[in-house]
């Protein structure tokens, strides 16, 4: 049995003490404001801590007749712990890390910030109406060997911290830990079943399905979902300044027409249909075909914030019916 227990006070006091080093996501804060310190620094999405919405990569300056390039290196202090929900952690560990931390060509800005940060995953006691994590291989109790896991259990926190990254001196209670494990296993059995086996391959075969037109028609391509999505990692490199300026690494969105527009004015994804199909296919087919995990963690944030109630879960379930037909 690897799990131990700590009191609410122990966790609360530890976070109070390490305050400047602990950052919490807004969603985790909202869920556990009664158990955790209320004045921790918050981030809207976990990804933005490492994958900055706006970051200067280098500065260029015209000095006399020559251009001088200076790489921008961050020297500011950076947090060491990020408190987040299981789906948000899965998005970091199995999607954005996979994209940015490749061995041959790591994205240095991301890698520098990400390396020193330990993820503290707080399991979900309650499942929101918009959640659908069990469909895509996540769960309210999703854990990862490199991260710390906490779960509120009868006045205590159940804690998994094999490498003792949090100096909390937990106590053991094998019987209670067994009860927690049983609760996890039993709850997972009651959740909706995962997407069918080989769904990425099957969906890929339906690239030309006329259903995409129907699925896409009411999406307004505003891109709000991609900005708040914990896994969306598309970015742009652009310049700001003429004789001296910065090359910027900024968030971008596959929902925007200019995202794929060629200089020749040809656009391989000219309408909303192609762009919506790209968004769904990338998460549910292309990304898993390349990297084995889904590019969606089922957090339901996009369903919550969409101004026109475009619903990715309904679309995916519609495609499941279509491919299984």
């Amino acid at each position, binding site marked *: 049995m690897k799990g131990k227990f700590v009191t609410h006070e122990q966790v609360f006091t530890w976070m109070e003490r390490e305050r400047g080093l602990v950052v919490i996501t807004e969603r985790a804060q909202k869920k556990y404001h009664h158990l955790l310190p209320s004045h921790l620094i918050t981030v809207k999405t976990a990804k933005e801590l490492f994958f900055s919405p706006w970051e200067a*990569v280098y500065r260029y300056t015209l000095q006399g007749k020559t251009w001088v*390039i200076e790489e921008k*290196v*961050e*020297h500011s202090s*950076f947090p060491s712990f990020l408190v987040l929900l299981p789906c948000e952690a899965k998005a970091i560990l199995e999607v954005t890390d996979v994209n*940015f931390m490749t061995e041959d060509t790591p*994205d240095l800005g991301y890698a520098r910030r990400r390396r020193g940060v330990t993820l503290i995953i707080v399991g979900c006691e309650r499942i929101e109406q918009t959640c659908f994590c069990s469909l895509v291989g996540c769960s309210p109790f999703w854990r990862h060997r490199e991260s710390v896991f906490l779960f509120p259990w009868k006045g205590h926190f159940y804690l998994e911290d094999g490498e003792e990254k949090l100096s909390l001196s937990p106590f053991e209670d094998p019987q209670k830990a067994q009860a927690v494990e049983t609760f996890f296993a039993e709850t997972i059995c009651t959740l909706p079943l995962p997407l069918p086996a080989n769904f990425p391959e099957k969906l890929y075969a339906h690239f*030309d399905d006329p259903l995409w037109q129907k699925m896409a028609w009411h999406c307004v391509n505003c891109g709000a979902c991609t900005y708040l999505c914990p896994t969306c990692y598309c970015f742009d490199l652009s310049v700001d300044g003429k004789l001296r300026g910065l090359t910027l690494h900024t968030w971008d969105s596959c929902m925007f027409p200019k995202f794929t*527009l060629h200089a020749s004015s040809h656009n391989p994804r000219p309408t909303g249909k192609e762009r919506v199909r790209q968004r769904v296919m990338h998460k549910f087919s292309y990304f898993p075909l390349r990297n084995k995990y889904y590019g969606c963690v089922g957090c339901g944030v996009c369903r919550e914030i969409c101004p026109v109630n475009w619903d990715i879960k309904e679309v995916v379930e519609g495609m499941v019916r279509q491919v299984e037909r």
Partner: protein
Amino acid sequence: MNGEVGIRIKEKNIYVPTMVPILEVIQETRDIKTFRVQRPSSFFYHPGQFAEIFVPGKGEAPFSITSSPQEERFLEFSIKRIGVVTDALHRLNPGDSVGVRGPYGNGFPVSSLLHSSLLFIGGGIGLAPLRSLINYVLSPQERINFREIILLYGARTPQDLVFQWELKRWAEHRDLTLWVTVDQGDSSWSGIVGLVPEVLKKVVEVEPIGWKSIVCGPPIMIKFTIKALLEMGFQVKDIITTLEMRMKCGVGKCGRCNIGPYYVCKDGPVFSYQELQEMPEEY
């Protein structure tokens, strides 16, 4: 605190270009110029790969490298004036500098072309990526590894033919058969007139066994040329082409140049027609 990590770990930032001087600018056509720039040290590439060129204050864009990798001192890029970055590039002169980062992409599958006869088919500026491989296979060290070499090149009008100086050299080269055609001739033109796919069927007489064809040009030309090659009996795996896409990072991270699960910047830009057939038609 890990703020000092950035100082301790001295790693290469993949998005930072190397500034190099422009050595020479050649006006190819009304709107195409070839830029010869100094080759950065430790810039090793294969024919068919591309690089990102940075114009300070304007931005960055990907261009295929048109010089052969055997040229040790310089890199060449042939660039059509079409957008913000290319417009700025066209205003530059020898002595000005540009940023280069790369090389990126897979390049032509040179090892699978060994001991084959090669049929190059180019249209317009599409000759630029082919030129790197043509000069590579024509080099004295490499020529022995390839059999017959044919180049069929076409442009809209005689004024739109790029690399006219190179075409003259190739025409005199005894190891290469050159056919040049234009869609529309004029009084100065005494050569072939006709669209590339039609000319291909008329003048190029090859038994496709042992041949590989490398095609690059505007999408419509590629489409009809491939059709003609298939009619001539070429196998889908023996037809190779190179694609264009809007790109930013060049390393498969920024997420815009994919066709299905393949990134054109990383898995491409060179694909066989067989591979293209298995991909969704979104390019």
